[in-house]
């Protein structure tokens, strides 16, 4: 345990990292039998589902209910590790009843949660072949999106929203719109999604609103972003996506103290790589270099973060901070070999740029911009690469686009944009 303690910054993060890896798995005394499935006392759906399992252990229905309860609780609380319990419950259900449609749907959904996009796609297609089910269509749409198969993603999203126009299909349409460069249209669709969400499903509403907030943030519309994050938080207390989003928005507006406390809150609930990096940037900006370094180390320590490590984000951080460019490039290349989404291409381009391989970097950067996504990070990377290649006009245009779109898209990198722009203007 001591090697972990040396890495963590505060008691809060320490307790988060330790608690999240232990609370769902370890019993209080070595002698006590380890319960097969953790009872989450404050999650009524989990408590009810465990009762259902106990009442009919020979039926798959209880295990399906339990898996669903874990997934929903994971979403609501940010406790990602409950997804592992959900997986075990799904496996139990499928052991009892291998063809159980509900269990197979949850299995497909969990493949996506764990970034097993190809497996998710395959199972989604199998489910769709058995019945024109909107859940399966949603899985297929999401898998194509994550794999970077954008034309197929758009095609399936259209098929889905035509088959069943509802909150979740509107949200998928919104994401595809945004990826394809229509941020205003995407905002309208997210609003429609929020309006049509099941009023009883607070987390679903909070999720949609946090997506809308992220979209506003990416467009530099910080006040609007904060408003919808607040609405999201009013529906689901301490909702980690909204805490993070609001913190990032506060940081963009220069309020670093409240930003730090909000992002810490998100990180304690849900120790994601990206949250640690964002908090690290805030700490560095506050002048607390030691804290920043520890957070970057936390982010880099995939074993500590377990399932929550994000190869994309780690490679980007290593490259951004010139920590270990060979490692960054190796991660980015491995990631890109697996999936061809625009962000995998973008991060690979950035790592190539950092290694001085500018022509290859430009090739990947163009791939990242292939569906005209309006995202300051993509413009920034493309601009710096053009600059390195001596194409100052294009560089200026791209860097200006980045800063006009989202002036604080990254607390550290936005400064580089400004410096580079003044140097080449």
């Amino acid at each position: 345990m001591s090697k972990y303690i040396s890495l963590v910054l505060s008691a809060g993060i320490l307790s988060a990292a330790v608690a999240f890896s232990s609370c769902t798995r370890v019993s209080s005394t070595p002698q006590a039998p380890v319960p097969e499935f953790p009872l989450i006392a404050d999650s009524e759906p989990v408590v009810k589902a465990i009762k259902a399992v106990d009442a009919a252990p020979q039926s798959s229905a209880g295990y399906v209910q339990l898996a669903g309860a874990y997934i929903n609780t994971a979403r609501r609380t940010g406790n990602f590790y409950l997804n592992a319990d959900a997986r075990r419950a799904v496996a139990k259900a499928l052991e009892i009843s291998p063809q159980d449609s509900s269990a197979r749907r949850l299995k497909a959904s969990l493949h996506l949660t764990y970034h097993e996009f190809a497996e998710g796609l395959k199972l989604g297609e199998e489910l769709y072949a058995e019945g024109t089910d909107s859940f399966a269509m949603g899985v297929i749409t999401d898998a194509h999106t994550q794999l970077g198969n954008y034309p197929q993603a758009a095609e399936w999203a259209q098929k889905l929203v035509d088959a069943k126009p509802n909150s979740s299909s509107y949200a998928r349409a919104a994401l595809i719109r945004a990826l394809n460069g229509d941020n205003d249209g995407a905002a309208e669709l997210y609003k429609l999604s929020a309006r049509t969400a099941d009023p009883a499903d607070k987390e679903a509403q909070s999720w949609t609103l946090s997506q809308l907030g992220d979209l506003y943030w990416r467009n530099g519309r910080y006040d609007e972003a904060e408003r919808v994050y607040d609405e999201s938080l009013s529906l689901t207390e301490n909702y980690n996506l909204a805490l993070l989003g609001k913190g990032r928005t506060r940081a963009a507006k220069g309020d670093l103290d409240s930003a730090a406390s909000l992002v810490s809150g998100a990180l304690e609930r849900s120790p994601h790589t990206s949250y640690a990096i964002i908090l690290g940037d805030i700490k560095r900006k506050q002048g607390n270099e030691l804290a920043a370094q520890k957070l970057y180390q936390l982010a880099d320590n995939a074993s500590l973060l377990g399932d929550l490590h994000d190869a994309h984000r780690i490679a980007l951080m290593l490259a951004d901070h010139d920590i270990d460019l060979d490692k960054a490039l190796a991660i980015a290349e491995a990631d890109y070999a697996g999936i061809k989404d625009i962000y995998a291409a973008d991060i690979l381009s950035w790592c190539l740029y950092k290694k001085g391989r500018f022509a290859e970097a430009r090739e990947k950067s163009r791939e990242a911009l292939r569906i005209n996504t309006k995202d300051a990070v993509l413009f920034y990377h493309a601009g710096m690469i053009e600059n390195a290649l001596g194409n100052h006009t294009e560089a200026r245009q791209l860097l200006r686009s980045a800063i006009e779109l989202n002036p604080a898209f990254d607390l550290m990198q936005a400064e580089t944009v400004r410096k580079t722009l003044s140097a080449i203007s």
Partner: protein
Amino acid sequence: MPQTYSVRRVDPTTGKNGKVIGTDLKVPPANVGPRVTPDYEQNLGQPAIGTLPNGGRVFAGNRDEYFYIDLGVFDGLNLRSVGETGGIDSTKGLNVSSIAIEVPIQELTRSRAVPAGPTSPDAVIGVWATASRQSVKVLGPGAPSKEDKWKQVSRLGNPLVNEVVIPLKLKDAFNALSPENDAVAAPFVLDPELPKLLQAVYGIAIPPAPRNDLVSIFATGIPVNPVTGPNYTTFLSDGIPHEYLRLNVAIAPTAIASQNRLGLLGGDVAGFPNGRRVFDDVTDIALRAVAGGTPFTPATNVAPNNTLGDGVSFNPEGPLLTRFPYLLPPNQGNQPRSSNQQ
């Protein structure tokens, strides 16, 4: 801003788009509480009843959710009770957006006349409702405006058919179907999943497939039988099964005081599955029907199959009104909803 609605009549003479027979009909505002909306029913509820040129009446707006059910029944059969008491009404204190419409009988029958009696060939009608939403354009060019074409996302004839009979993978497809295309769902009526789940969880014997008894209840109508006599609700417009709610309009309504919540199973021929009164305990009836606890399957028409229930047998907000729209006024919004979700 007050919400308004219109009523459109579609029949063989009007074409597909029908004919508008009522416009600018008013939806009453929400029942906020005694200070903002005093004497709600007298001032706002009753005045919102619209009249139609054919003598019909119509109402659209918030009402108390009269339907009573312990939702545990659909939550993996997580029931507090499998008897007639001991459940908790999951919809207690909730309001529901309601549409009530009263139509002269002769406007609904095949003969366009009031049937001579319950055995007349035109006595049974089939009813279902649908809800639709607008799709959107995923990609441009142009803003993601809602498409003109409405997509059917929900369809209901018999209560609970989706929950009880249609398997998960076909629920979306079924909700988008018109009854004329119901053949695709037929195999699932013959061998549904829920009875098997009842068997697994509660260890009760269920009738073996094919469940022709369920086909009668959901898709062809109740045939000639000793309780109701000839032509109870059998209605096969084209000789093949379709799922809709069947109503024999020539069977006289039972006076409210004498109604039995179990409808036909309780000996009340004016109740479900002869139409479905808001008062009818369709949850208990459907549970018993899928478990084979009805006279159609004598071998399983025994306890506990014919005594199953969710343990909720009445609407806790009180009995129905004796005048149109019959549904109780909405619960006021300034009172916290009593905790009844346990």
